[in-house]
């Protein structure tokens, strides 16, 4: 990777769900995947749903064994729409038992070098409902890796066995995991056992065990999730970090608590790019029901404050289906309006993955980290032409030729 490489955040059009890839500009081209939601329709070549698995695989480099890999996979929490397709597209198990080396590239499952997992998130979710199969598989893999770490006393743990535990579990269950434990408010930059110069993250949530049954129930009902404020930079030559705030499905009570905690140091919550919580759900901003109260529904000032620490030119993204002016939630039209107000104040932009670049043909929404923040890839030059051709632009350019085939790749089967 040359010094010109870019740090890029890709948000895939996965409907109401999350799948975000952070590709760092370091020499190792480190890739961090937060959540996945690869629906069956997206895997069906006959279906028009965007093939996001291909989009993801295209962006992943292959290791020396020819395996596609991510350096990190983080499940923000255990809901279906954050881990759907995990067992089909990713390999879960001991690294030396990876079974796909002889398969075609397109059939090789993605190798996860390091897992980031929060036992507290899964514990809270499990109290309310039975975890889905994919979440159970993820949790089992995280447990396997923690055991390997414990057995090896955290020394000599290889890629494929590595794990970071985000946040302490209840009853001191994670007290012995020092080298692989990230505590709340800790800023860390270790990825796959190495310090990374392009990445820092502050762990904001899940909120630690409170000891209060009522409070725990509230946090559970508010979709306790891993919340990270991730700082990225375009090169090691600058000390300017751009912040990406991502919080899974965390809802209003959680954001209220963040505001209470950080209102005297709001820079902790400051961001240039926000993935709006819970697919632009009204319930991240309010206790009221949007479908019942509409414009009369009260916005929580604290939650809104927590989600308003936007920098100039900042972006907010709803990872959801297209947002309509109706009773649907999520995505909620009222929440979209709130976020639009937030970006308007800083001359920023609001995006919905289901509408980008068009509702009819959504494609990955990608931002490049620059000195000014997060710049949408493929922005236009002064003459209206793209300044740089990206895959997305080429997709659109090529699609215009689809009806008039001018090239036959396999030739015309005439020989002499």
């Amino acid at each position, binding site marked *: 990777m040359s010094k*010109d490489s870019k740090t890029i955040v890709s948000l895939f059009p996965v409907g109401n769900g999350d799948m975000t890839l952070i590709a760092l500009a370091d020499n190792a081209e480190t890739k961090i995947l937060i959540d996945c939601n690869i629906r069956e329709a997206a895997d069906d070549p006959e279906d028009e749903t965007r093939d996001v698995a291909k989009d993801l695989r295209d962006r992943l480099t292959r290791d020396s064994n020819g395996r596609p890999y991510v350096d990190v996979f983080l499940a923000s929490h255990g809901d279906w729409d954050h881990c759907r397709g995990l067992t089909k597209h990713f390999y879960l198990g001991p690294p030396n038992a990876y079974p796909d080396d002889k398969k075609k590239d397109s059939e090789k499952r993605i190798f996860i070098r390091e897992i980031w997992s929060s036992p507290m998130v899964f514990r809270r979710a499990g109290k309310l409902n039975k975890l889905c199969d994919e979440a159970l598989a993820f949790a089992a893999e995280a447990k396997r890796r923690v055991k390997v770490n414990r057995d090896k006393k955290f020394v000599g743990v290889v890629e494929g066995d590595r794990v970071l535990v985000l946040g302490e579990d209840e009853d001191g269950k994670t007290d012995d995991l020092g080298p692989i434990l990230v505590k709340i408010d800790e800023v860390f930059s270790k990825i796959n056992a190495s310090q990374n110069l392009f990445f820092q993250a502050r762990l904001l949530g899940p909120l630690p065990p409170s000891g209060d049954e009522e409070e725990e129930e509230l946090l559970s009902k508010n979709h306790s999730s891993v919340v990270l404020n991730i700082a990225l930079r375009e090169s090691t030559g600058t000390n300017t970090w751009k912040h990406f705030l991502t919080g899974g499905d965390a809802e209003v009570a959680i954001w209220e608590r963040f505001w209470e905690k950080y209102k005297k140091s709001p820079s902790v919550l400051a961001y240039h790019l926000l993935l709006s919580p819970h697919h632009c759900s009204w319930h991240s901003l309010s206790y009221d029901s949007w479908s019942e109260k509409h414009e009369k529904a009260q916005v929580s000032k604290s939650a809104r404050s927590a989600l308003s620490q936007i920098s100039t030119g900042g972006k907010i993204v709803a990872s959801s289906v297209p947002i309509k002016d109706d009773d649907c939630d999520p995505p909620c039209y009222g929440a979209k309006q709130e976020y639009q107000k937030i970006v308007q104040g800083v001359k920023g932009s609001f995006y919905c993955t289901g509408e980008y670049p068009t509702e009819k043909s959504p494609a990955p929404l990608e931002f490049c980290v620059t000195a000014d923040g997060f710049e949408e890839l493929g922005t236009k030059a002064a003459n209206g032409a793209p300044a740089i051709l990206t895959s997305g632009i080429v997709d659109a*350019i090529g699609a215009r030729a689809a009806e008039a085939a001018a090239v036959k790749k396999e030739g015309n089967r005439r020989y002499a």
Partner: protein
Amino acid sequence: MPDVPTLEQRRQQAILELNDFLCQECGAVRLPETSATQIQDCDFVARWRLKIQVLQQPREMNVCVSGLFPFAAPRFQLIDGPPFLTWPHVEKDGMLCLGDETLTVDPSLPVAMARQLLRELAFPLLLQSENGSNREDFRTEFYSYWNATVLVGEPPVRSLLAPHGPSRLVRIWHGQHFAVVGETEDSVLRWLRNLYGNQKQFDSTDSACLLWLNEVPLPNQYPERSSDVGEMARSCGGRPFLSELVVNGRRSIPVIFGSTSENGPCFGAMMVSNSERTNVMGRRVDFVRAGFRPGRAPQRLVAQRLFSSSVPVTRAKVERADAAWIHGRDQDPRQASLAARRVVIIGCGAIGAPVASQLAMAGVGHLLLIDPEILAWANIGRHPLGADSVGSYKASELAKKLTASFPHGHFDSRTEEWGAVLAKEPNLLADCDLLICATGVWSVESELNAWHASGQRPSHILYSWTEPHACAGHAVAIKSGDSCLQCQFTPLGDAKTVVTDWGGAGPSREPACGAVYQPYGPVELSWTAATASALALDCLLDKIPRSTHRIWVGPKVLLKGAGGSWNSEWRREREDREAGGFLEERAWTKDTMCPICA
């Protein structure tokens, strides 16, 4: 006449349209015409520069059109890609190889062409290169990359090796301009003598080693030093063979490696140089034998030192010249069988000679040609031999020509009547897999038929002849124990099935006693020869379980032009025969009253 644009007008219009598309939709900038330079022997008449970002890395790429545009696709040139051999399908000068040899384009749609190429070929290639998912292409298209690392002027190695493992010792002959490697000394020297004649330098070979690898190497695994060769040998259990090559006085050690890719077997060659060095005293010393008196260094130790050191390795191309490659590029499942088959051809005239050539090209491994006649000037207009063979025996000259053309094959000749050959060497005829009689002479055919019917081998005899002016041709395969040739012939040698009718006209004559001929040309005759060759292959491949007759019927226009008509009896058998121009197959049925086989 409609106002049809000239080629140049079409080209300029297409370039204008492409320019608009590239500049307005792709943000490209047209490069000055003075910089539209020659790249890889190709003159580009216009180029544009694009900025692209496939994944994380912004790059620059040129779109180039040659003077063949829009009849040929534009090409894409990566300007600041990684070093050559980092990505597959990217040439030394950055040109993307998009399968240009098989691409076909619609010249009336220059912009759609560029859109499609960008989206479906250029960008996906760059994407797969950046993410590494096409790395296996280095293996499946090994020759393109290995051969690109060979120094210009390095003599190639021509291989007669069987393209499979295991690793083994083989033999190599070194010439100034090429080397030849084969399984045995005999096979290498025979090949050389067949191709170049008996020359004194074709007297011996050296030992070499074939390493058969489990996997085709990637470019970063191509050996550069002797230690790399040692490592390669270790990976496939070939170290003991390397040790055997390290003998005193040897100037270089030839190592061939091979492996099976998805597209079939492939080879590369390396020469490990002399291990002598000049020491500080200016004397030449052999460092791998240092510490031992001349000739006393243990071979195993010398090999261990040599293949653990950094003696330079010279790479060479391997040109496969073995039968499996020449006859079907490893893809023809018939080759193993055909290479082992023995065919005798009696009559090397206008049918027998092209049949012999076709069977040799098809991979039949052993041909014996029998013909007592000498090639005359009048023959060469429809014979594979030419003026340089006039005055020589047809059979021996043809065998010589085939031997030089296919030096891996076995071609022999007898310049006698077939009966004389039978009398002197009866096994030559009896032991062959197929005997072909292409004389059209009843005395030969009837005698052969009687011999075959008496229970002698081979299992099939194939007879072939044409009718007048080659307007129809016949190939009959007689299966041993089934009907015989006589069954469908009159006792005087007239075929019972005749396609054409010529009234009372007889053959043409030369101004000499008994010199009759048919004035047909090589083109119409080629159909009959091909019919006979195809039936011969079917016999050799055990596809003819009973006696079979194939008739090639020329088109009516040929027949009319020569002044003939269809034989009315034959014509009446089926309605659709009038136009001619087809191949027909029928059983060669047994005649219960046949004087030979009944």
